[in-house]
């Protein structure tokens, strides 16, 4: 009776010893070396897994950064200090990626662009509205104002304002591109934060046809193109288009004579404050005179 107990204890202990030996050997023999720096770099990354760096997540990004295939600055979410810390830790260049932000190309809020129908469907998202006759807004290109972009933004960088337009906070925006993808009217564009001259309108209509629908629409009058350096702004298909390849020529002057305020020069951090207060007021037509040095170099 007692011996049976000892035998069974002996078998269990023997098996335990055998398996632990196998584990100990396989730990030595089959060990896969993983760079410990990957864990450290991953810890220094924001952990947002947003995909703005084009990698499937922060861990994958840390791996390629440690391998040296990408520069730390490809992570647009991290602050500059965090990037420097990663660069110092790895002994590499942080790289100088251009800070990109999402800009909304519509300024026709509740007061500027009117609705001509009521949407009463149960699906109150921009996408849902857009499939019903293009949405209730009279302007076919304009922001529908239900905030699909604000909902999808992982960084709380987009907020819907009182004027039913999304406002982007450039300090929070990481240029991940989610808002660009979700907007049914394709109103977001990622651009370098230095780009201060933008046309906040996508309406292809001209003249009063455009301004009847929205008081801040581009009516394709061509004044901005005439005032700006040659080749910078072009009126094509009823809309002023900025040639960002020649952006170094851009000045504040191009916006001064815009009769509707569709083209703006962003001076402060928030796009919202600008469209409301600091840009030229709609309807103001003012001739400021030419500064030869600025316009015709």
């Amino acid at each position, binding site marked *: 009776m007692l011996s049976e107990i000892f035998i069974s204890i002996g078998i269990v202990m023997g098996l335990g010893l055998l398996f632990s030996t196998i584990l100990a050997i396989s730990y030595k023999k089959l060990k896969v070396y993983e760079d410990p720096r990957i864990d450290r770099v991953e810890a220094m990354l924001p952990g947002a897994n947003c995909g703005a760096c084009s990698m499937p997540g922060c861990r994958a990004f840390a791996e390629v950064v440690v391998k040296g295939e990408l520069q730390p600055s490809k992570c647009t979410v991290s602050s500059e200090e965090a990037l420097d810390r990663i660069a110092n830790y790895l002994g590499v260049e942080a790289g100088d990626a251009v800070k990109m932000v999402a800009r909304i190309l519509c300024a026709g809020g509740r007061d500027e662009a009117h609705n001509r129908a*009521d949407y*009463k*469907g*149960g699906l109150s998202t921009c996408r849902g509205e857009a499939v019903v*006759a293009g949405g209730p807004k009279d302007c076919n290109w304009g922001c529908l104002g239900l905030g699909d972009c604000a909902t999808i933004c992982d960084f709380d960088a987009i907020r819907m304002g009182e004027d039913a337009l999304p406002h982007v906070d450039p300090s929070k925006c990481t240029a991940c591109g989610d808002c660009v993808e979700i907007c049914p009217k394709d109103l977001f564009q990622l651009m370098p934060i230095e780009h201060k001259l933008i046309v906040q309108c996508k309406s292809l209509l001209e003249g009063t046809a455009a301004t009847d629908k929205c008081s801040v629409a581009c009516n394709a009058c061509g004044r901005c193109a005439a005032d700006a350096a040659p080749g910078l702004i072009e009126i094509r298909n009823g809309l002023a288009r900025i040639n960002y390849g020649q952006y170094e020529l851009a000045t504040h002057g191009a916006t001064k004579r815009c009769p509707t305020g569709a083209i703006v020069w962003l001076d402060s951090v928030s796009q919202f404050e600008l469209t409301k207060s600091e840009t030229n007021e709609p309807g103001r037509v003012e001739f400021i005179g030419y500064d030869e040095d600025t316009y015709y170099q």
Partner: protein
Amino acid sequence: MSIASNIATFRHGVHPEEYKGLTESKPIERMPFASELVLPLGQHIGAPARAIVVKGDRVQRGQMIGEPTGFVSVALHSPVDGTVLGIELSETITGAMVPAIRIQTDPYSPQLLRTELPPVPEALTTPEFIQSIQNAGIVGLGGAAFPAHVKFAIPEGKTCSYLVLNGCECEPFLTSDHRTMVEEADAILDGTMILNSFVKASKVYIGIEANKPDAIQILRDRISADKLPIEVISLQVKYPQGAEKMLITAIEKLEVPSGNLPIDLEFMVSNVSTIGAISHWFRKGMPLIERVVTISGSAINRPANVRIPIGTPMKDVVEFCGGINSRDLSSVRMLLGGPMMGMVQKTLNTPVVKGTSGMLFLEQEHVSSLDQYNCIKCGKCVEACPMFLNPSILGILAKKGLWADMEDHHVLDCFECGSCSFICPSGIPLVQSFRVAKGIIRERNSKK
């Protein structure tokens, strides 16, 4: 067993109120030319036509003004004698602004066609026939406006054994196909024989819902008088019988597998009015420049079936039909198409296009606007879905924005018949959210 089991149909589906009595006994009227027509270049699915006229050009009735820009594209013709006012952005039924040719009608523009007759179909080879249909601008007149020649061109290695003409017209209110079958039975049968001389199907069916006994009778009489190899099948009245996959199930008890087309099962399905247009093209030389539209609903003074030139603005049609009996236009729900799948309109400037089968004006009290409640898992939508999807679970996924999971639940098989939203007692916008989901999924897949 009930009597209904003897009548062919598909499984699932819904029974909306018909409201066809408003117009089903009214003969087709001809609408006079409006003073100005707006002809969008992209009225069909596929690449828009390219304008071949410029501002100031004189055009004749039946003259080609837009040429096809690829295989999945059709020509566009002027329905009137007149002058081109220009090519401008104009509103379409989806709300998008697209380039359109505006034509000022001559004060005494005649109905006469002065264009040349196309070659007789007997002298054509199959590719020539397909091209001729493309140049005639013929698209599926059931509502989707898919270029007809693309459907008629049988892919290499496939054959067509069954030609099915779709005369179901299962949408409530609409009677344009019904009246066309009654009044133009000869053209439909002639078009069928022309088409079948190229398709060479061994069996030809015309599927008509049992609520159109006069159309069934007339077609059967003509067929037996001429001894044509065509069979008219009376179908149980049910929505969405007119969807081609449902029609195939109803007639031959075959199910088109997910991701396949009817031609994979040797079927070709075409709307009866489209077939009528083929006959008009080869016998009269008339391209697709006008179509029969049902104008109906409680808010229009004179509901009617009207033959309308393509490009006529809705406001002229409203005027022709006695106007709207409500002082406030904004209280009237305007729909292009039927009430189940039609598009809500926000203006009367939209022109009638090739895909417009009906124009409905509903008073606000006839428009249901249910409050939205949570899903009570009653399963009515599952019983209604003709594609055997699970709208309930899809609706929950859509609410959470889980588009990839919706694709796994086959939301792309949904053809947006709206039966689920119609039947839902909780007023959940099911088909509406599937539309959104399909758009997002297609966009993402096209980027991959």
